[in-house]
């Protein structure tokens, strides 16, 4: 956790510096208004200050707890599936992309019963599609398929 605290601290400082730098392009304004740059700058300074505290604390702390990342492969896989899902959502259509992504995620989570997987994905996606499309009139993206 110490190492992670240091890395997040540094990343947050970089992030805040960018925000502070970005505020230079904002127009400066009259006497009474603080202007658009005041608030973001204040926040950026706060982030830098607290990040320094976070980093310093990580050096003072004696005990350290380990962050477990046992199932990280599964998480990375599911993030990947989500990205492909979103592209498919636009290009192929909601129904088809949802069915395929759900099957994949269920498989990643260790579900192996083929009939259950097929039944659950097709039924749930179908019901959701009908509810949103016909009941709420949300035009879900249609790509090549539905």
């Amino acid at each position: 956790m110490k190492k992670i605290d240091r890395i997040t601290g540094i990343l947050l400082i970089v992030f805040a510096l960018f925000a502070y730098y970005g505020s230079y392009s904002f127009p400066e304004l009259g006497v009474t208004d603080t202007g658009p740059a005041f608030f973001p700058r204040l926040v950026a300074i706060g982030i830098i200050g607290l990040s320094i505290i976070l980093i310093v604390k990580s050096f003072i702390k004696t005990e350290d707890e380990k962050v477990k990342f046992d199932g990280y492969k599964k998480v990375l896989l599911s993030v990947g599936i989500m990205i492909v899902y979103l592209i498919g959502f636009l290009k192929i259509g909601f129904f088809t992309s949802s069915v395929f992504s759900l099957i994949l995620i269920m498989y990643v989570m260790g579900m192996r019963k083929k009939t259950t997987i097929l039944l659950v994905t097709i039924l749930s996606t179908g019901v959701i599609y009908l509810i949103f499309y016909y009941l709420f009139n949300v035009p879900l993206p249609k790509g090549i398929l539905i």
Partner: protein
Amino acid sequence: MVMLEFLTQGFLNALQPSVLIFIIIGVLSGMVIGSLPGLTATMGVALLLPLTFGLEAETGILLLIGLYIGAIFGGSIAAILLKTPGTPAAAATVLDGYAMAQRGEAGKALGLSVISSFVGGIISVILLILIAPQLAVFALKFSSPEKFALAIFGLSIISSVSGKSVVKGLLAGLVGLLIGSIGMDPMTSYPRYTFENLNLLSGVNFIPVMIGLFALSEAFKQVEESGIIQKNIKSVASKGLPKISEVIRTLPTMIRSALIGTFIGSVPGAGADIAAFIAYNEAKRFSKKPEEFGTGKMEGIAAAESGNNGVTGGAMVPLLTLGIPGDAVTAILLGALIIKGIKPGPMIFQTNVSLVYTIFAGMIVANIIMLIAGLSGIRLFTKVLLVPKNIIIPLIFMLSVIGSYSLNNSFFDVIVMLVAGIIGYLMMKFDFPASPVVLALILGPMAESELRRSLIMSEGSYSVLITRPISATLIILAIITMFSPIIKNFFQNRKKKTTS
């Protein structure tokens, strides 16, 4: 007695079949969602929010409130049967609930949990009905400096909801504030940090952010833990419900815990999980036999469950009267109202009286539905725990996508949701709390615009913030709330060092 008239009208509205059916759907799905460990009340409300877009304002909001009430009770089912709280709010219920279940009194424990949740919920709604209109009249006098102070007070709560590390909680809040400043500046409309992206002109929408932070991130976590074998549920062998004499005996505990829960709920920031523990500790303190707590004592369940459901009414107080969300769930409710073009705050008691009283009445109805469903169908709800996680969790992925898309039919929102989900997962791993981000995202723009409006009012003098009594009081309160956990930590650490 104008209030009674409004309330009668509210009941007539809430009991219309077209409204009632959605309250029932809300409560029942809340009970299901709450009973599944890993699915929280916040997640349920975030995922069901899109369903309210097609509904009338009162129907939609009551669907979500019903879900909230049902889920806070539902958490106790897994707490009693699995020793795993279904929602964080039920963590205190585990202590005595599981012990009772092991004695073969699971049925009795569940029954008592339903009754306590009902008592807690009803008392908190009654208090809400009594307090909220008065507070709204008072808040009507608020002008920009007071509203700024109020937003700052809301933000100061971040330090007490930060969990393990106050520094990390504050950092999460500040990042939320920075994200909140994306988009057109509230006074001059100058586009800040938009990178010429039109989608960012009106700012980052906080609903996709919430769906990502509270639903998708949790789904990623469940995927990570999916290899772990689930515990088997203890069968609810004993059919027995609690006897009437036992309910009467625990009633004082329920009422006291309901009051505690309502109070804690109405303080912005503190939620049902904290309320349950405080109510539990108070019950222990008041008890003649405190040593029996934790061994399956009925008062333990009564305190925890009445306390956490007491929060439901309390949390609506700041939302309706001041327009500031008390916790993550009410933040989504705020979003749901804004989508409908209704801005919560003191004015709502004048412009939308009928809506407010329909919400009040609907909350009472929701609690009654929960009681009936809980007492008659508890065995059915325990079956939910048998559904494997690797069937339920994948559905959350789909619901997150469709939920964030249907908000504005915008694909950009879906991308925001995915990014928030990934960041939220990492935050969970690295002990950064998620709720400060959301509080900051909502209260930040409010604080900034009211501050600048105050300065225009006072022609640039900051003294306007401290010369007005209400805003000065709120700012002092904010400073105390902000620093008390830090000071407490400091002294605890020193104590530890001197003793060791």
